[in-house]
């Protein structure tokens, strides 16, 4: 019993820090950076991706003995696409404004390497519960990078967090200015680069 507990904990927490999908495995950066101008969109995207990875892992794992080896990629792709369509429709129904801002990037979860990568490398070889938790862990690992980048960009770029002003007026009066550069695309690349540097240095210590 003890052994399985530690294994479960390892499956959940390892991808969050030590084996982070974005920072270490370099997966899934494609669709991640464009939604990081605001914290709110980043959080919604992180939740959507976590749910998609978790449930696609679950579905692939449940069917792992039924799916023929030759056509497994197509089968996985269908599962992922179905889940993404559900996520997209749910967002359109309940959070219309945010889904407009996320625009095509929800759809691009399909081609996000994390989803396919976890289905291929983990869910095909592990039982459903463990695969589900692995999906949650990877989704949270991915989401935490997304949220960290969005936090920096929104705070420095527009002086807000989640849409509320957080920089006191006194700062602006004494000459502080928002860094417009943070809102542009290049800033996201550079922040990711610096975060990777920080994380690798901390891990190697």
């Amino acid at each position, binding site marked *: 019993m003890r052994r399985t507990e530690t294994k479960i904990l390892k499956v959940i927490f390892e991808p969050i820090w030590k084996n982070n999908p974005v*920072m270490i495995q*370099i*997966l*899934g*950066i*494609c*669709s*991640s*950076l*464009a939604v990081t101008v605001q914290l709110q969109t980043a959080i919604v995207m992180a939740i959507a991706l976590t749910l998609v990875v978790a449930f696609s892992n679950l579905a692939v794992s449940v069917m792992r003995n039924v799916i023929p080896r030759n056509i497994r990629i197509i089968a996985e*792709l*269908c599962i992922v*696409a*179905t889940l*993404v*369509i559900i996520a*997209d*429709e749910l967002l359109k129904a309940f959070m219309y404004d945010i889904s407009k801002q996320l*625009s*095509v990037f929800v*759809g*691009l979860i*399909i*081609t*996000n*390497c994390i989803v*396919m990568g976890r289905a291929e490398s983990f869910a095909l070889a592990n039982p459903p519960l463990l695969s589900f938790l692995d999906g949650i862990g990877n989704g949270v690992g991915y989401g935490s990078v997304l949220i960290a980048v969005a936090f920096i960009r929104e705070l420095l770029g527009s002086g807000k967090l989640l849409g509320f002003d957080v920089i006191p007026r006194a700062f602006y009066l004494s000459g502080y200015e928002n860094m417009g550069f943070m809102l*542009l*695309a*290049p*800033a*996201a*690349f*550079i922040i*990711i*680069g*610096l975060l*990777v*540097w920080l994380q*690798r*240095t901390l891990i*190697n210590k």
Partner: protein
Amino acid sequence: MDNIIGIFINSIFVGNILLAYFLGMCSFLSVSKNMETSIGLGLAVTFVLAVTTPVNWMVYHYLLAPGALSWAGLPDIDLSFLKLVTFIAVVAAIVQAVEMIIDRFSPFLYSSLGVFLPLIAVNCAILGAALFMVERDYNLIESIAYGTGSGLGWMLAIVSMAAIRKKLRYANVPEGLEGFGITMISTGLMAMAFMLFSGITM
């Protein structure tokens, strides 16, 4: 006509699909280590984008869009929610077909592009271009210009990145930053350079 040239130029430089919209990063990061493969993959992506974007336009406007099935006597049907899964299937099918055609007619081209074609089916840039084309409401000609331009822009970015990484090999990069970290930062600097083109309007 001006409009089409504008879309073409814009999709190469200012609205570069990689540097402004972050699409196709995965293959960009893994392939840009080597100059020859970067050129090969760049050509393959350009070709596939130039073909799939207009085909997806036709699929969307004649089968999926709200009211698109009115030619079949079904004007009330809206299948646009199926666009994600249809586009990815169309892309995969076309990539497969292109691979077979190239293999049959040009062994030389096949030996240089062939290995990259299967990779492209899951490249986010291809699906992304198709989805942007729907969202921005391009017509058929505009979508051809947009697809070709995006491909060329992606190729420009990956080839210049390969050149930068060649030089980086001799640079003294701090520990922990080498590899992925410095690549992302140089991509950021390159993206900044591409944004300077935003003054160009047609």
